[in-house]
């Protein structure tokens, strides 16, 4: 634990501002966490909770309406917020790679697989055409694509969904990055292919000593793949800590509800809609703790003030009044 | 669009027109042209069709040789340009608005029938629409003009016949999506006749699109009319149509009689530009779905 972490986020906030500056959406709000080299972090939360924005914030590839308003992104000890656009470009694809959600749409339909896989190598390492081409074949072999010699010359539409997803994986690892962010990498794949793909990612992680960030709403994947988990709700990190700890004893009511909603093996019926109520409108979030309208344990104070981040253990934090040492009067409101 | 009766929505949207960059200048220009068209007899200083041969090619008043009698000069037959421009507004407005109306009514009705009834009605209407659309509008209009002969009335019919297809396409698409909406399904379940549903539920809801399209078509129609008149298959002389004035003006152009070319063109441009600006604004305001158009 003495070596500096690979990635450290300190009070990171990203806001979307409407064209006239009248509406502000706090998509990422005061997020702090750390990630060690070679380890795996799962970020979970409902859609719209800010997971993907957080990933794009780390890479500084936000849409024009979004601004990083405060905080630091320390990667290998360097603050990425202080980097110039050109420096950031040299980091993307080379030291931090990302896999997007939709493998069907992530590949450019007009260029060959080989061209697209070899591209980062050519740009970041200045490898020539021939060298990059043979590297592309190796990469395809590494992600277990059969007959890479002929596949490099083919086009994305000739591949199945699972193959495309592996090709996207090959692109991500092409320059041996230190950190790989995968945004819902398996949602569009069927179950067997999903499992194969996760195994592949784990093997790649071992071979390349990759740190992985998994963005998902599938807690099963988190349990299988991750060392740590970060739970996001309405742009905030409501709980962050080791997977074993959080799965055994979740501290935040939202985490508890999420874990309660996992369909269990052999449980015949799937219970997927465990949390009552609607996800909050981020443009007009509830007062106080954003989760209070849906929280079964909400107290009067939860309406008034957002809970501070409380450390339960050295690497386990939670944002909930229930975990604050001096709880205000516990009067249930519902 | 809301699922409530759209007649209300139109009214509602119209009341909120003040806000958000209402195109005041284009609307004023169109309004002024409309005024000139209606009161042309009163406003115009001279008879637009009778010239004084002794006063040919007079330049506008501010140039040397100009006289106050002809504020904007005179043409090759000694006719007052200003009066011809004013009466030309009448021709453009009458032809433009009626042609848009003819095309709009025809296209909207056929579009609704095609979209709502489906089946062979849809097939027939859409095949005709496609073939009609494949014919380049201007060539087709010239051909029709050559077949039926030039007159103001025929121009309206020709422009209506050429441009209804654009409405039919858009309106049909809109009807197809309206058909799936709850209020239409409810009306079907409630036992309304097809006729009633098309008239009471579908028509009011496609009216927004028809209005937007009509405004945008106004510019197209005015340019086409001018082109036809310019080529001699539009409004027959000696009527003062802007396109016809340009054709006449071309004769004096090499001698430097610029006002005969520049002024009628400016009028066409002002009208078309105003209609387009107003149409663009209406499109954003009334019918967000048409923004891609």
């Amino acid at each position, binding site marked *: 634990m003495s070596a500096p972490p690979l990635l450290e986020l300190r009070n990171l906030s990203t806001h979307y501002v409407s064209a006239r500056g009248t509406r502000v959406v706090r998509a990422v709000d005061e997020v702090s966490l750390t990630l060690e080299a070679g380890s795996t972090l799962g970020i979970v939360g409902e859609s719209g909770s800010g997971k993907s924005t957080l990933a794009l914030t780390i890479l500084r590839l936000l849409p024009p309406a979004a601004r990083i308003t405060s905080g630091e992104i320390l990667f290998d000890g360097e603050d990425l917020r202080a980097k110039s656009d050109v420096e950031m470009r040299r980091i*993307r694809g080379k030291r931090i790679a990302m896999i997007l959600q939709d493998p069907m749409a992530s590949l450019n339909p007009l260029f060959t697989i080989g061209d697209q896989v070899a*591209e980062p190598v050519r740009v970041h390492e200045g490898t020539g055409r021939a060298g990059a081409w043979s590297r592309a074949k190796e990469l395809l072999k590494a992600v277990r694509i059969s007959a890479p010699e002929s596949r490099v010359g083919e086009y994305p539409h000739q591949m199945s969904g699972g193959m495309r997803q592996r090709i996207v994986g090959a692109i991500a690892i092409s320059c041996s990055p230190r950190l790989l962010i995968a945004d819902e990498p398996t949602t569009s794949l069927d179950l067997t292919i999903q499992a194969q793909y996760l195994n592949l990612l784990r093997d790649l992680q071992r071979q390349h000593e990759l740190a992985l960030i998994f963005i998902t709403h599938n807690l099963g994947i988190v349990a299988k793949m991750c060392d740590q988990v970060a739970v996001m709700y309405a742009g905030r990190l409501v709980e962050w800590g080791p997977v074993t700890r959080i799965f055994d004893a979740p501290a935040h009511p939202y985490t508890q509800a999420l874990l309660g909603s996992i369909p269990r093996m052999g449980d015949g019926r799937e219970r997927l809609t465990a949390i009552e109520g609607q996800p909050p409108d981020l443009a007009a979030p509830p007062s106080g703790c954003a989760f209070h309208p849906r929280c079964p344990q909400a107290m009067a104070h939860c309406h008034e003030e957002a809970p501070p981040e409380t450390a339960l253990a050295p690497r386990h934090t939670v944002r909930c009044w229930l975990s604050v040492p001096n709880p205000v009067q516990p009067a249930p409101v519902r | 669009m809301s699922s409530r009766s759209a007649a209300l929505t139109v009214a509602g949207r119209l009341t909120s027109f003040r806000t958000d960059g209402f195109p005041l200048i284009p609307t004023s220009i169109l309004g002024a042209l409309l005024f000139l068209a209606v009161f042309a007899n009163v406003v115009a200083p001279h008879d637009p069709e009778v010239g004084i041969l002794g006063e040919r090619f007079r330049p506008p008043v501010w140039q040397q040789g100009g006289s106050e009698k002809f504020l904007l000069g005179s043409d090759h037959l000694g006719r007052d340009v200003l009066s011809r421009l004013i009466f030309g507004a009448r021709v453009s407005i009458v032809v433009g608005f009626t042609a848009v109306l003819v095309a709009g009514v025809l296209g909207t009705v056929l579009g609704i029938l095609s979209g709502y009834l489906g089946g062979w009605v849809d097939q027939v209407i859409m095949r005709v629409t496609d073939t009609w659309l494949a014919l380049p509008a201007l060539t087709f209009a010239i051909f029709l003009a050559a077949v039926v002969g030039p007159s103001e009335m025929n121009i309206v019919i020709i422009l209506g016949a050429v441009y209804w297809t654009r409405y039919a396409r858009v309106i049909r698409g809109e009807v197809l999506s309206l058909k799936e909406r709850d209020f239409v399904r409810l009306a079907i379940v409630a036992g309304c006749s097809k006729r009633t549903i098309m008239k009471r539920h579908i028509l009011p809801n496609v009216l927004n699109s028809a209005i937007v399209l009509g405004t945008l078509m106004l510019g197209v129609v005015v340019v086409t009319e001018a082109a036809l008149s310019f080529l001699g298959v539009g409004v027959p002389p000696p009527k003062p149509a802007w396109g016809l004035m340009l054709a006449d003006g*071309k004769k004096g152009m090499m001698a430097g009689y*610029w006002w005969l070319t520049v002024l009628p063109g400016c009028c066409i441009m002002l009208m078309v530009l105003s209609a387009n600006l107003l149409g663009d604004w209406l499109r954003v305001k009334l019918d967000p779905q048409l923004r891609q158009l």
Partner: protein
Amino acid sequence: MKQYIAKRAGFAAISLVLLSITIFLLVRLSGDPTVLLVEPGASQADIEAIRLQFGLDRPIWVQYGHFVSSLVRGDLGHSFYYRTPVLELYLSRLPSSLLLASAAMVFSLLIGIPTGIIAAVRVNRWWDSAGKVFALLGLSLPSFWVGLLLILFFSVYLGWLPSSGSGTAAHLLMPAFALGWYFAAAHMRLTRSSMLDVLGSEYVKLARLKGLPEALVIGKHAFKNALIPVLTLAGINLVIMVNVAVVVETVFAWPGIGRLLYEGIAFRDFPVVQATVILNGGMVVIVSLLVDILYAVIDPRIRLAR
């Protein structure tokens, strides 16, 4: 791809048939077609001869059969004015028309594509607004008026360029500009919207995630994809240009098909008018088919489909 082409060709064939029916019926329905088909000032005996020749006393489907069989044989009638087969006239004018349309197309693409891309990349900034004004003006100014203004300025006042005729590059300049102006605006609009679509796509996002320089993201990944709809439109617009050129050709006395059509009207030469419309319409259908095929060649998704 063969199947794709066969299907497109089938559609094109249907369009051609419908086109011939449309033209045929419009001429018959307008009243007495002999008035149109007979030379102005012809004697009663001549009129009767024409009636017999076209079978105008026979049932309408027989007449249509006659009409189509002449079309297929390439017999589009004789010009009253030139006393030659109309098809010959048309073909002799076609190269001029294509030259003008190609020049106008090159001009419109050279202006339209770069401005469209800049407007999309700098969306909602100054450049984008300037582009919108340009597009609006382009779509609102009638081409023949632009042509007249060009003559007034460059020929009459400055005396730099010839006001009419053809033969040299200088003759081509103004007509190409006047004709291409509107299309430059149309191509700019489409380039902008298609580029905006592509820039929002996942593969462009991935290209940025790869750390590619922005020039490569735009110039390679976005450009080629954004260009497909623009080139499709441009292909069809080339034929549309041949058609709309009638006014510009009249203004500049450019000896193309548009000018032929104008003469047909001016000299009351109906066979010329009818043949020009049929051939122009047919050309639109055929070129649309060719564009579809070309599209298939550019796009591997269609090219490699079995």
